[in-house]
């Protein structure tokens, strides 16, 4: 498989925008869909579009089979201990909100503490703020240094016997720095504090083993991993999920319903209220297969060349400031945020758009982190490492 072959798998990438071949660098927001994902969705919508778990007719049985086999595929992909630990949601944000509510209602009271980091996007800040407001808990923040690395050495002093959960991104969507989540989990577990890992970016750039990480919760989105939009996963250790109250009520999350009281379904249905995203969730299967196929050595080498090219280009020009500076060769993924002296990010993004290059500009859904770096909004580009897919003028240079 070569780079042109990969590009050809994405229907959206063959288009021109403003008369220029599209170069899509906005993968941190959402990736494009490969043909195999589009096909899967199309087949389900046309063929087995029926509600799952409920009826005995053929279409419902087929739809249930597709949906539940996706749970097995995800379980294997992230190496969870059991399929009951895989909850389908609409995305990372929904997964984190689920934990903030259900874990919060069950375990967090007035005066307790939640710790997040300065490198989080809003989805891993606001649900915890809301929990703290509801339950009278306190939100504490683990800082990052000037290069964008977490000050993990400060974690021990932040943790107290009132800390009920630590929420941390595996990789920040702005900085692209791999956070030492395994080490963080170890530190937190030493005092019995559970950890939620926001894997929205991490699951895309690295293979994930939740048992090796030993995290208590792991949240990610399907749509950043090439699957359909509106798909997400919450992994939670059974011991926690079983003790947590449900998030939403209704649909198949019940065992029995009486006006005198309701009992809830066992895991995982307990957390999947209402009609699920039945036609989209199964697109995680081809999406995962596609992601695995990119772990090919030749593609990884190509990705490394793109990384080096961009890294050199963004660090050799004194007007360009890169955010999230690596310390070693393995601690940054191909996710680059930068600002340019004397040029407004909006102007640059508009001009790049007219050149056919899609980048993100602005606050990156991580305002506190932007404030940390002087409130200067950035430009953002994710070219590769399994994903992106360069073409046109850059590619020529890259292959020189």
């Amino acid at each position, binding site marked *: 498989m070569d780079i042109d072959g990969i590009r050809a798998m994405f229907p959206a990438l063959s288009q021109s925008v*403003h*008369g220029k071949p599209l170069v899509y660098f906005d993968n941190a927001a959402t990736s494009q869909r490969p043909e195999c994902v589009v096909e899967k969705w199309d087949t389900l919508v046309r063929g087995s579009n029926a509600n799952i778990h409920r009826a005995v007719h053929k279409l419902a049985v087929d739809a249930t089979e597709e949906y539940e086999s996706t749970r097995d595929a995800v379980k294997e992909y992230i190496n969870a201990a059991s399929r009951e630990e895989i909850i389908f949601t609409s995305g990372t944000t929904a997964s984190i909100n689920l934990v903030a509510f259900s874990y919060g209602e069950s375990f967090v009271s007035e005066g307790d503490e939640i710790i997040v980091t300065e490198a989080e996007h809003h989805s891993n800040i606001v649900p915890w703020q809301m929990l703290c407001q509801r339950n009278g808990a306190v939100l504490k923040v683990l800082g990052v240094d000037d290069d964008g690395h977490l000050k993990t050495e400060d974690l021990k002093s932040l943790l107290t016997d009132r800390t009920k959960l630590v929420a941390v991104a595996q990789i920040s969507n702005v900085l692209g720095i791999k956070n030492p989540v395994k080490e963080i989990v170890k530190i937190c577990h030493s005092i019995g504090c559970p950890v939620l890992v926001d894997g929205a970016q991490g699951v895309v750039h690295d293979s994930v083993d939740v048992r090796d990480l030993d995290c208590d919760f792991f949240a990610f989105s399907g749509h950043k991993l090439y699957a359909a939009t509106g798909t997400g996963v919450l992994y939670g250790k059974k011991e926690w999920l079983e003790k947590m109250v449900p998030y939403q009520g209704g649909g198949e999350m019940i065992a029995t319903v009486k006006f005198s009281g309701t009992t809830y379904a066992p895991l995982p249905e307990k957390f999947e209220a209402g009609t699920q995203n039945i036609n989209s969730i199964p697109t995680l299967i081809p999406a995962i297969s596609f992601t695995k196929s990119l772990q090919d050595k030749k593609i990884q080498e190509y990705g490394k060349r793109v990384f080096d090219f961009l890294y050199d280009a963004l660090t050799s020009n004194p007007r360009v400031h890169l955010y999230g500076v690596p310390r070693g060769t393995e601690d940054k993924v191909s996710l680059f945020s930068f600002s340019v002296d004397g040029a*407004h*990010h*909006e*102007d640059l*993004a*508009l*001009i790049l758009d*007219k*050149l056919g290059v899609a980048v993100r*500009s*602005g606050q990156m859904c991580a305002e506190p982190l932007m404030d940390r770096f002087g409130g200067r*909004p950035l430009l953002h580009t994710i070219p590769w490492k399994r994903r992106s897919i360069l073409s046109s003028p850059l590619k020529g240079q890259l292959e020189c």
Partner: protein
Amino acid sequence: MISLEEAKQAVIDDFSMYDEWLDKYEYLIDLGKNLDSYPEEEKTEDKLIKGCQSRVWLNSKVEDGKLFFKADSDAIITKGIISLLIGVYSGRTPEEVAGDDFGFINEIGLKENLSPTRANGLVSMIETIKALAAENCN
């Protein structure tokens, strides 16, 4: 001074000379460069137009029954857009500005190509100009 309709037509004609968006941006950037300087002390929070990714300050005054605008932005394309709007609407009566539909913006394709609402706030700029005009209508 040319009429409002003539001013709008002039912008449409200018834009029609360029096929490429990058050329249109250059045209806008040049427009921005021609803006009268905007006093630093007037770059206050209440003069900022809400809803723009870049910062846009807009101030107005009425002289001899005519509405005059001045503006600035920290982004050069946005500065060109506000300059274009001021060029068309400054120096007219508040009634004329408030009663206009600003439809010429659609004819030059500016909205589609510049306005993922939060990105540049073209709509916010128009709404602010309209509101300032409405405030000064008799």
